[in-house]
């Protein structure tokens, strides 16, 4: 139970901050700055957790654990801790959330206290999802993510926000409730809801499918992505970034940590259908991204494609695939959050994200051009980029399941180049679009301040992807987490 307080702090700090901001009568700017400072502290605590984590003990060990009885008679406890790979997702999430909060401070969201309280609540819930080691606790955090997201999209979103929230809400709740049914059946029949006890492993296909229902909707995986285009278009830019960057990774984490690791049997049986859906999503998402008429559409559908790719890696169920999936989760989280915020900044200047009215923005706006170009190039997985490392590992991993999967993945990488280059040229190059005012400013210092750190992190991961891949599942298939898979 050493250093369990770090995990608690990572959950409770934003939660307490949310309550404080909701109650304290702060003016708009102060509320935003308090939230920003708190989330910077959150990053610092994450750094502390990372340095306290011992990656040599064994890849699957849960560390930084803490436990308190919640309702003992049914074997439910507040049991938190991190698996090695989960810590990277926590880091990605808190960084993305911080950037999003900074973005919101910059653009000045109205109803600031409610807004920033919701953002901090979302941070707490996200970290909680990655930390929970009890099924019911996991469900609680999972659902708790939805509550702030519902208002964040519904109150501060675009004109179609009511419909978008309704779709998002109905889809995700339908999935979540199936997961709740699975959790009840699993927990009550085993007498414990703890994920780390041996009884937490089960081979019931129905229970597995209940969990999967929640994850495929939240990710989303084709054909459960009906909520995605509207939610990503109507949400405020930074919330869309958080949705596609961080929240979708909670689902990918669910695939990895709950589906694959806790249900090896059904994973093995149902792997092919899952891979087929992921493959369809990958190709279909890429094609839609290529055809999308606006900035956010491209990023939204590329998210669908990338989640398909990550699912490939996870359900390759070998070390290369899993390492690649984790790396790609972090990469995609940073890329898509930055992309959505960039889209938001472009929309602020031009009032639209439609390609037919954009163009020629590179001229006289070097900062914007450089940031978008760098992001785009990393996103399309140019050799040498972090995304390339991740995708390469995923394709290597899934190759062992059949070369056909790798071909699908490779095609998707080509498609990614197509849609990303189209996006870049449509915004930056070509002739000046009708919606681009003459005086549209370049990225300003504060805007660079929130985007550049994300880009720097991506460049860092491009230079040293092993920072993550060496600290997840190790190099061989002998790690305890994976031995049960074979």
């Amino acid at each position, binding site marked *: 139970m050493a250093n369990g307080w770090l995990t608690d702090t990572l959950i409770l700090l934003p939660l307490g901050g949310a309550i404080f901001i909701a109650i304290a009568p702060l003016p708009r700017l102060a509320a935003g700055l308090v939230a920003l400072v708190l989330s910077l502290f959150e990053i610092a605590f994450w750094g502390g957790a990372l340095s306290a984590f011992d990656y040599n003990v064994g890849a699957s060990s849960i560390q930084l654990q803490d436990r308190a*009885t919640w309702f003992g008679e049914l074997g439910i406890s507040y049991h938190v801790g991190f698996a090695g790979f989960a810590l990277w997702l926590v880091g990605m999430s808190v960084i993305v959330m911080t950037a999003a909060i900074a973005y919101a401070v910059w653009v000045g969201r109205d109803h600031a206290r409610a807004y920033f309280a919701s953002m901090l609540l979302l941070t707490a819930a996200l970290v909680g999802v990655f930390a929970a080691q009890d099924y019911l606790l996991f469900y*609680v955090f999972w659902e*708790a993510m939805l509550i702030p997201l519902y208002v964040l999209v519904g109150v501060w979103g675009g004109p179609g926000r009511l419909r978008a929230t309704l779709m998002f809400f109905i889809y995700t709740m339908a999935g979540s409730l199936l997961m709740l049914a699975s959790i009840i059946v699993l927990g009550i029949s085993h007498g414990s809801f703890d994920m780390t006890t041996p009884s937490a492993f089960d081979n019931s296909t129905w229970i597995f499918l209940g969990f999967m229902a929640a994850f495929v909707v939240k990710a989303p995986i084709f054909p459960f992505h009906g909520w995605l285009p509207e939610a990503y278009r109507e949400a405020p830019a930074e919330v869309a970034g958080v949705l596609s960057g961080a929240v979708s990774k909670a689902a990918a984490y669910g695939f990895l940590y709950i589906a694959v690791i806790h249900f090896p049997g059904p994973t093995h049986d149902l792997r092919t259908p899952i891979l087929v859906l992921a493959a369809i999503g990958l190709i279909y998402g890429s094609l839609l991204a290529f055809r999308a008429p606006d900035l956010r559409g491209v990023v939204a559908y590329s998210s669908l494609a990338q989640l398909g790719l990550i699912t490939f890696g996870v359900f390759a169920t070998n070390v290369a695939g899993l390492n690649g999936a984790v790396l790609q989760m972090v990469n995609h989280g940073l890329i898509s959050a930055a992309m959505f915020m960039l889209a938001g900044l472009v929309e602020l200047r031009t009032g639209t994200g439609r390609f037919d009215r954009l163009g020629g923005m590179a001229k006289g706006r070097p900062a914007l051009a450089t940031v978008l170009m760098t992001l785009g190039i990393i996103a399309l997985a140019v050799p040498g980029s972090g995304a390339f490392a991740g995708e390469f590992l995923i394709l290597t991993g899934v190759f062992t399941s059949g070369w056909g999967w790798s071909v699908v993945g490779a095609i998707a990488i080509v498609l990614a180049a197509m849609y990303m280059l189209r996006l870049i040229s449509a915004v930056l190059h070509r002739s000046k679009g009708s919606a681009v005012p003459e005086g549209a400013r370049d990225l300003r210092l504060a805007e660079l301040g929130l985007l550049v750190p994300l880009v720097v992190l991506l460049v860092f991961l491009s230079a040293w992807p092993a920072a993550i891949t060496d600290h997840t599942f190790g190099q061989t298939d002998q790690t305890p987490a994976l031995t049960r898979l074979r």
Partner: protein
Amino acid sequence: MTLADSIPTPTIDWFAMSPALTLLGASGICLLVAVLLPARARRIVSAWVVGAAFVGAFVFAAFLYDKSPHPEEVIANEVVRDRLGALTALIICGAGLASVGVSWRIRLRAHVAEYYALLAAAAGGMCFLVTATNLITLFLSLEWFSICLYVLCAIDVDVEGSLEAGLKYLVVGGFGSAVLLFGSALVYGATGEVGFSQIAQAISAKDLVHDPFVVAGLSMIIAGLGFKASAAPFHMWTPDVYEGAPTPVTGFMAAATKATALVLTLRLLTTAFPAEKQLWTIALAVIACTSLAVGNLAALVQRNVKRMLAYSSISQAGFMLIPIAAGNALGGRALLFYLIPYGAMSVAAFAVVAARERELGTAVTFDNIAGLGWERPFLGVALWVCMLGFAGLPLTGGFVGKFYAFSAAYDRGWIWLVIVGLVATAVSLYYYFGLVRAVYMRSPAGIGLAPAGGQPPRELALQTAVFGCLVVTVGSFFFVEPLIKLCRMAAESLGYPF
């Protein structure tokens, strides 16, 4: 030798009746206040008296809970002194106390003192009812609190629907009581007993499990209690009565009446009819499913907030019947646990509606509640928490309650009932979150707020009551362990003979 000596008089356990007696006493004081004090003092004095009585009854019930680890039948076996009754009395008194806060600024032209007198008397009847251990006590105390509520519903003569609500409640409730009484008579006819445990003994001794009179009587009793719990298909009165009654009364009815009726159902079925378990578990499961279907589907299309909450209370009755239908010890404490946040959420939700109603001077709809979240931040948050709780989402006790209810059903082996409950939950999200959407996401254009100009009156009492309810709602999520222990010890007093 006098006559009094020849008739044996029972020893009376005054302590066992102390919650009900405290409330009755307060009721009597209020009636005196109504005639003795000048009109302007009546409101304040009677509200304080009844509020103090609810606190007193709460304290008595807490002591009673502490001092009655073993259930015993007292006062000539008419009532039982046990933890189940004490815990339910705690819930009733809590709801009652909050309702006094909500009622503080109620706009009654006259009869304010009588209003509080009836509120206390109704709560006293409920506290008494949940300790009933034979059919006579049951019927008497059921009528006792029902008659108080009939009048309370109709007391606001200025409101158009109020009298209609009272009448409708009287007619339908009277019908329900008659059915219950007839069922009791059939059971008595077949078994020759009126005491709950004696009925159970008679059924097993005389092998009356399949006796048509017992079965018919049992089903009529269930129907009669279904009327009080507003479970479908015995719910017809609910929407109109909830809409027409003064809103604080509606909140009290939703919380306390339902708790009383459900706990009584649990007690009666487990202690008097354990041999018929096969029958009533299925019957209650069917009623639960019907309630979930009717309540949820009808709530989807409501535009009036009180009507929506009325249909939601029907579906909540369905949720709370699930653990009773499970018919196991887990179900017993699941029901009791569910009632704690449910009572708090009901009172708080109707309190917010009451506040909005007083502000607007008209019935609250999904349209004119728009913007409440930003104009009255506290009430908006309160309403949101209540909706989360009704929907059974985390961070509220409603989640734990539903989880326990479903666990009990699964423990019984009825996974289909869990699925039905989950589907119903999914449907209910639409209207619960629809209200949140109206409160936060719609612009309040076109509503003439505060037509007289200026700020609406500060409702300190109402806000305190709502705050207390929120503490219970959210607290019951975090402090499950101590609460479930209370519920378990209370449910154990039923003994669970099967």
